[in-house]
């Protein structure tokens, strides 16, 4: 396919300054904007059609900011509604693949800019953008049998459609929140990082996402469907051997095989006895602090040290390499949101130290557990002795013995 501009991952990350954009869509200056992917039946989709409702780019005034809705409708026998968010997130990636097109955020927060350079090169119509989307979607996902892209720049029309989009987003979030390990038969494993850590294998469940933070259970499901021979695959979870610690016969079987026999039992929700392994890509480490018999978390971007005086890089050396290390678990930061976050060990209620940045980011969840103001940060303490003092002073529930381990 020939387009006026070039395509490829080399254009991701190019930002377009205010002086350089021809037009802008969405963003904080604009009230009505959203993007949405919907699975429809084949009769409802006209393959490779691009429709524009409202003005096209060449009819808009240069330098202006405009409302926009992007609708991707797909049909295909092997597609499932759960894949809609995975497909929808691709709009961001594909847009950024376009030379001179920039896309930020998702859902009803989207913000796009088209550069003057690319407009000059001939990218002056949403039609071409739609053709690019159709081209890339069908290139990457052969399970899409029919695809239709619609752009709406008519503000009234967008305003009308927005509420139903918001409902869809909310329903997805609710489903993701509510779905638990108990509700599904299939878990996923990922061995993408084995070229660096040959014995490591991530187990991904609705309550436990991959250590790198890039894949949750839904992502893995979609990835497995789209690339059945890839590094991500589904497996039957098997018998639940220990619901609290998160031990499943299916998972044990998988890790025994994938770790070259190095270990054959894994607890998905505990840092002791048979903890989950890590390669080197994890976003954070949940670590045990023996002096207070509780846990802290340190993340990759944190430049300082733990109360014990250790840097992330030092601790990462022990945690990585595909070994089961008690009391030192690599994790994704989003794991903090999970209801089963190290539940066998006390979960969030056993956290006593966090970098301030993390504490603020997950404030809501920590408050819900009643521990937000009981957790020390690098601003409160600078060594273990001070940590002990702090926790006693604020009356941390774990220290006070008030936390009951479930089950």
């Amino acid at each position, binding site marked *: 396919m020939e387009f006026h501009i070039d395509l490829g991952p080399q254009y991701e990350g190019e930002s377009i300054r205010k002086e350089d954009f021809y037009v802008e869509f969405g963003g904080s200056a604009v009230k009505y904007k959203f993007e949405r992917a919907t699975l429809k039946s084949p009769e409802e989709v006209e393959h490779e059609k691009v429709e524009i409702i409202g003005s096209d780019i060449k009819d808009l005034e240069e330098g202006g900011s405009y409302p926009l809705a992007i609708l991707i409708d797909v049909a295909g026998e092997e597609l499932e509604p759960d894949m809609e968010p995975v497909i929808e997130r691709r709009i961001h990636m594909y847009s950024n693949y376009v030379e001179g097109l920039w896309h930020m955020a998702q859902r009803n927060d989207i913000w796009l800019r088209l550069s003057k350079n690319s407009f000059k090169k001939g990218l002056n119509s949403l039609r071409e953008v739609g053709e690019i989307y159709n081209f890339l979607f069908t290139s990457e996902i052969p399970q899409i049998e029919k695809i239709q892209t619609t752009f709406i720049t008519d503000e009234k029309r967008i305003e009308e459609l927005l509420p139903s989009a918001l409902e869809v987003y909310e329903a997805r979030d609710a489903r993701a929140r509510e779905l638990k390990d108990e509700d599904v038969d299939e878990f996923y494993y990922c061995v993408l990082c084995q*070229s660096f*850590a040959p014995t490591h294998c991530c187990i991904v469940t609705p309550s436990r996402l991959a250590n790198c933070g890039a894949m949750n259970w839904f992502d893995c499901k979609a990835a497995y469907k789209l690339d059945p021979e890839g590094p991500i695959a589904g497996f039957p979870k098997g018998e639940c051997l220990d619901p609290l610690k998160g031990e499943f016969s299916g998972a044990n079987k998988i890790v025994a095989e994938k770790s070259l026999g190095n270990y054959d039992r894994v607890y998905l929700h505990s840092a002791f006895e048979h903890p989950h392994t890590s390669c080197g890509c994890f976003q954070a480490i949940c670590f045990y602090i023996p002096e207070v018999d509780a846990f802290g978390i340190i993340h990759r971007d944190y430049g300082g040290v733990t109360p014990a005086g250790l840097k992330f*890089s030092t601790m990462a050396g022990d945690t990585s390499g595909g070994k089961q290390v008690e009391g030192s678990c690599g994790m994704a930061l989003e794991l903090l949101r999970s209801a089963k976050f190290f539940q066998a060990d006390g979960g969030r209620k056993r956290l006593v130290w966090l970098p301030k940045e993390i504490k603020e980011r997950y404030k809501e969840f920590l408050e819900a557990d009643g521990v937000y103001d009981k957790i020390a940060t690098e601003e409160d303490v600078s060594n273990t002795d001070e940590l002990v003092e702090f926790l006693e002073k604020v009356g941390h529930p774990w220290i006070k013995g008030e936390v009951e381990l479930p089950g």
Partner: protein
Amino acid sequence: MAEVKAITRKEEEVRQLIKAEIPWEPVGPTPMPEIPDLRSWDMRLLKTYKPWYAPFCDLCCLCTYGKCDLTENRRGACGLDIATQQARIILLACLMGCSAHAGHAGHILEFLIERHGPDKKIDMGTFIELEAPNIRTVTGLKPETLGDLKAVIEYVYKEITHLLDSTHMGQEGSYLDYESKALHASMLDHVGMEVADIAQIVGFNYPTSVAETPMIEMGWGAVDKSKPVILLVGHNPATSCTLIDYLRDNDLYDKVEVCGICCTALETTRYSDRAKIVGPLSRQLFFVRTGIADVILTDEQCIRTDIPIEASKAGSALIATLDKAMYGLEDATDWDTEEIVKQMVEDKKHFAILDPEKAAEVAAKVAIKIAPQKRKEWITEEEATELAKKCTNCDMCERVCPNLFSIGDGITEVAKGNFDLIKEQFNLCIGCGKCEEECPKQVPIFKIMQVAASKETWKIRAGRGPIMDTEIRNVGAPLTLGTIPGVIAFVGCSNYPDIEDVADMVDEFARRKYIIVLSGCAAMVAGMKKDADGKTVYEKYSPDFDAGGVVNVGSCVANSHISGAGIKIANIFASLPLRANYEVIADYILNRVGACGVAWGAMSQKAASIGTGCNRLGIPVILGPHSSKYRRLYLSRKEEDDWRVMDARKREIVDTGEPSPEHLAYVCETKEKAMVTIPKLCIRKNDTPQGRSIKLNHYISLYKKYMGGGLPEDLHLFVRRSADIPLVYKKEVMAHLKEIDWQPKEPVGLPTLIGTYPTKVPIDAVIH
């Protein structure tokens, strides 16, 4: 099959030298390896990356039985054939390179131990714990003090003697074994370089563990010629740092301008960010002939051997400060300072002064005295036009030009008052002066070129030394997942087809999110081009060792940090032990680290040993067209060669059929072709599907840009399964693969050569 051997006295001595009793890691199989110890690894490399010889000379002239004609399979009087003769010369070149750095290292180490004592601790900063990756891996020693480095450099000296021995008449008769020895010498070069740069960083307090080093001013325009100017030419910072100290201590630093050419400029600007960089080697003769320098201080390597004559012609004073190059000058090291100054100023004599402090004092005093007497103006365009009229277009200049262009055409244009052509040609000039020497009309070509020389000032980052351990850890995940498509190192001298080539390549690949590292003359020229916003690549991109980052590690000896980064990836990310474990680490880098060197303007023997040292470690290098004159490359024949590996997970040999990397030492004729070849040489067998698809994206995208569209002819060799195909080209590639009846193959998760050839290393060693 292996017998239990008693430890020999030699082995015991080695264990003592490397302090084997300190258990920071178990000692691997080859501590302080000698010529035969890594030979089986070399032979395995050479089996796939066969030596390709382009004899530079049909004869051998080394002994008095010669000259011997070696064409048509003739053997010399000693029995040597043409291939073995080329390999011998390559070994000699690599030995010269290795000795250059070992000599520099030994000298600077003595100098700094004299200053700080042998117990001065090696501290590379907060973010670097792995202080000496090459030394640890090759020797098995973890150096903690400057004194510890002595045992390392003495080991290198010893090996040089044995290697040089084998170049004597009537020694090695196998070109493969000469290559193995060249690989050995070159591995040792990286060790010597590391000794030098660690000593310098520690002894001179260079920046380390910091990415954002200061910006330095570079170019003719950066030099303030209203002040007395001292020019440093060479490589050894003992002279330059001492000079800066002297000027500071005597409150002269504001009053005297210090500038440098070649690596010494990169060293000096790590010590003081107020020093200026004139440019790389190719600008040496120009600048000397302008007479802008009042005093020239030389130390060693890559200096004009007739510099005393040129200095005299230009009215500059010259002091030779190192025994490697004394030019037949009187040795005034023990003379009275004032006497030397007097003779230099009044009698215009040049001297050798081997004491850096005395040299610094004399230089400063002489510069201050003679500067007011000199006229330092560039010639005007009118003057140039007049001088150019002498040219008769005889084209003798074109005949002797090593870069094969006609400066005579440019001069003819200048005679008409037109300066466009000569400005372009200045970028092609490598500064040898042969044109002017040959000109029958004595046209002062170099003088006329002053109007062509850009008076611009560019910004380049000061050399920052090693890559930090934290940076290595940070890029591990993106390198695996493929968001960083590879690491490209632009290194080497300034014998380019066009000086802007390197800047263009750096910009293209930094934009595409490769990690770019630079050193030496290449680091300088990369900064000698400004984009539409007036920025050099150092201003445009971040200085972090990360996607799209542009990192200047420093001078020639800082090349050890580039090989060091590969070693760090093996240790920090894959947890492989380093100690005396060279073979396993090289095997890891060859099979699993997507790195490629580009020595676009390689000219010297040092460049030969640096490149060959990278090769032994498993890093491929692309060279510019002049480098066909090195006489030897390491090429595979694509599908025809042996691409079997051991799958260390499954313990079985797999025939991957995938030439990755395809060559170890290659020549591209043009910058355009280099752009297409670089992404291909970053492909490795253990690429994840994402990683492979991003690498192929760049390969295909650049192919389309420079080869007129279509798909690379060898693309099918690099597609294992359809998940490897980049999204944007998926439909086109799938159609093409179908046409040629391509079959998918299983990717190998843990590829290694260990287990495919006879070696003492067990397969378990490649998995930690």
